[in-house]
């Protein structure tokens, strides 16, 4: 469809929230809790925080929850009955106020979950999710979306992209059919746009490296163990980077509840030493340097080659969340500049 550009304001958006609520939709939006801002269910625009550069966690929970039930089972006298999830019963969700980088991340997730064998629960959640992005008016030193083809006002992945135009006014780009449906019945809330260029309202994010060089540079560096040891010396091997990442999709499958219980899927991280540990005690990636290498290779070499999409959108969350300041942008620069 052709993109429509309209204009709206806070008051109209507040009414839109009420409309979505009336339609039974769950609204996930950045919300302040303590000194952290994260996506949480909200009921009104007033609860939404839009001043931050980024939330701590990504909105991937909407389509890839921290813990989800794949199915439940009950066993009796050697017989087992499986009760499947109803994909139609996943919550209809509007994610409001996510940044363009986060919106772009859904295609990376979809690439993993629909690769070859489609994942019905993920696909159902994605189909039931509408994305209302808000352009970035500010960025920080951890942001590098433009180095990966995104931008503070990029529309990719958003169904509607709002850009704050000052004084409570927003430019609204209706990007997709889903976006058009989202505002259906709210025509009055969206006025014809004044011919305004959104660029002037956007943050400036400099391109930090040549993304086409990263994949080949990583491949050339793979066997350079000294490089990886040096790069990862500080890394303590927690999963904070993976868990706040909007595209990290590694997971574990766990049974709980005994013979009549549930099979659950939960997040996992390639940074953990036990991630690849065989029961025999053999570990294909026994060192943290190998696990850090895996993290970068997966996102910047393997995914582009196997799934034709980068596994990173440059949101900078991993760098902000890292307890020991592993700043991924720095590491990517080092990769781009390394001479193997």
């Amino acid at each position, binding site marked *: 469809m052709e993109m429509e550009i309209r204009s709206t304001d806070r008051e109209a958006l507040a009414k839109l929230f009420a409309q979505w609520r009336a339609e039974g939709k769950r609204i996930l939006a950045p919300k302040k809790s303590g000194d952290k801002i994260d996506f949480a269910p909200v009921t009104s625009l007033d609860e939404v925080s839009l001043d931050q550069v980024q939330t701590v966690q990504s909105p991937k929970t909407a389509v890839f*929850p*921290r*813990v*989800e*039930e794949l199915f439940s089972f009950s066993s009796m006298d050697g017989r087992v009955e499986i009760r499947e999830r109803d994909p139609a019963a996943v919550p209809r969700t509007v994610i409001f106020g996510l940044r363009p980088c986060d919106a772009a991340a859904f295609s990376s997730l979809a690439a993993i979950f629909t690769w070859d064998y489609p994942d019905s629960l993920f696909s159902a959640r994605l189909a039931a999710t509408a994305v209302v992005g808000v352009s970035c008016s500010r960025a920080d030193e951890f942001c590098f979306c433009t180095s990966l083809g995104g931008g503070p006002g990029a529309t990719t992945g958003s169904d509607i992209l709002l850009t704050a135009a000052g004084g409570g006014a927003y430019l609204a780009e209706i990007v997709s059919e889903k976006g058009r449906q989202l505002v259906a019945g709210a025509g009055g809330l969206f006025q014809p746009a004044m011919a305004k260029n959104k660029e002037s309202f956007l943050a400036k994010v400099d391109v930090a490296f040549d993304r086409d060089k990263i994949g080949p540079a990583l491949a050339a560096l793979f066997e350079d163990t000294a490089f990886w040891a040096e790069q990862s010396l500080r890394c303590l091997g927690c999963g904070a980077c993976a868990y706040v990442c909007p595209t990290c999709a590694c997971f574990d499958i766990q049974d709980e509840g005994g013979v009549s219980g*549930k099979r*659950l899927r939960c997040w996992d991280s390639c940074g953990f030493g036990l991630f690849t540990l065989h029961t025999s005690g053999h570990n294909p990636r026994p060192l943290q340097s190998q696990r850090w290498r895996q993290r970068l290779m997966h996102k910047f070499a393997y995914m582009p080659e196997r799934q034709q999409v980068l596994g990173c959108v440059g949101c900078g969350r991993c760098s902000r969340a890292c307890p020991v300041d592993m700043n991924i942008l720095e590491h990517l620069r080092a990769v781009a500049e390394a001479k193997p």
Partner: protein
Amino acid sequence: MSDFQPKIVAFVCNWCTYAGADLTGTSRMKYSPQVSIIRFPCTGRIDFMLLLKAFANGADGIIVSGCHPNDCHYSSGNFHARRRWIVFRGLLDFLGIDVRRVQFSWVSAAEGAKWAQLVNATAEQIRQLGPFRGYQRLRGAGVE
């Protein structure tokens, strides 16, 4: 609430309290039937995680009991256990978990009557506190 029958799990040591409970039975003393006894070699072996597992699996109250000080079959297992109980109780309380749901005691092999009193008193205590909904509600919470 009057017909609430609490589920109580008792973690007891083999040498004193289990024998004491046995004596209660052989002495034909009656006591509250809501208790399920789990026997351990020693109170020193009763990891605090087992207590959490009991709550997670629906216990409304817990009894932990072993040999009196200086009577441990392994000489000091009960002293070590006591330290852990002290710290564990403090932590539970700080987390807002009612420590009245966990009753610690020393019951020797000769104290059949004390075992009956202990179970009855604990059952009454838990009956008053009611089902441990606050904990049982955690099961399944946070799964989408």
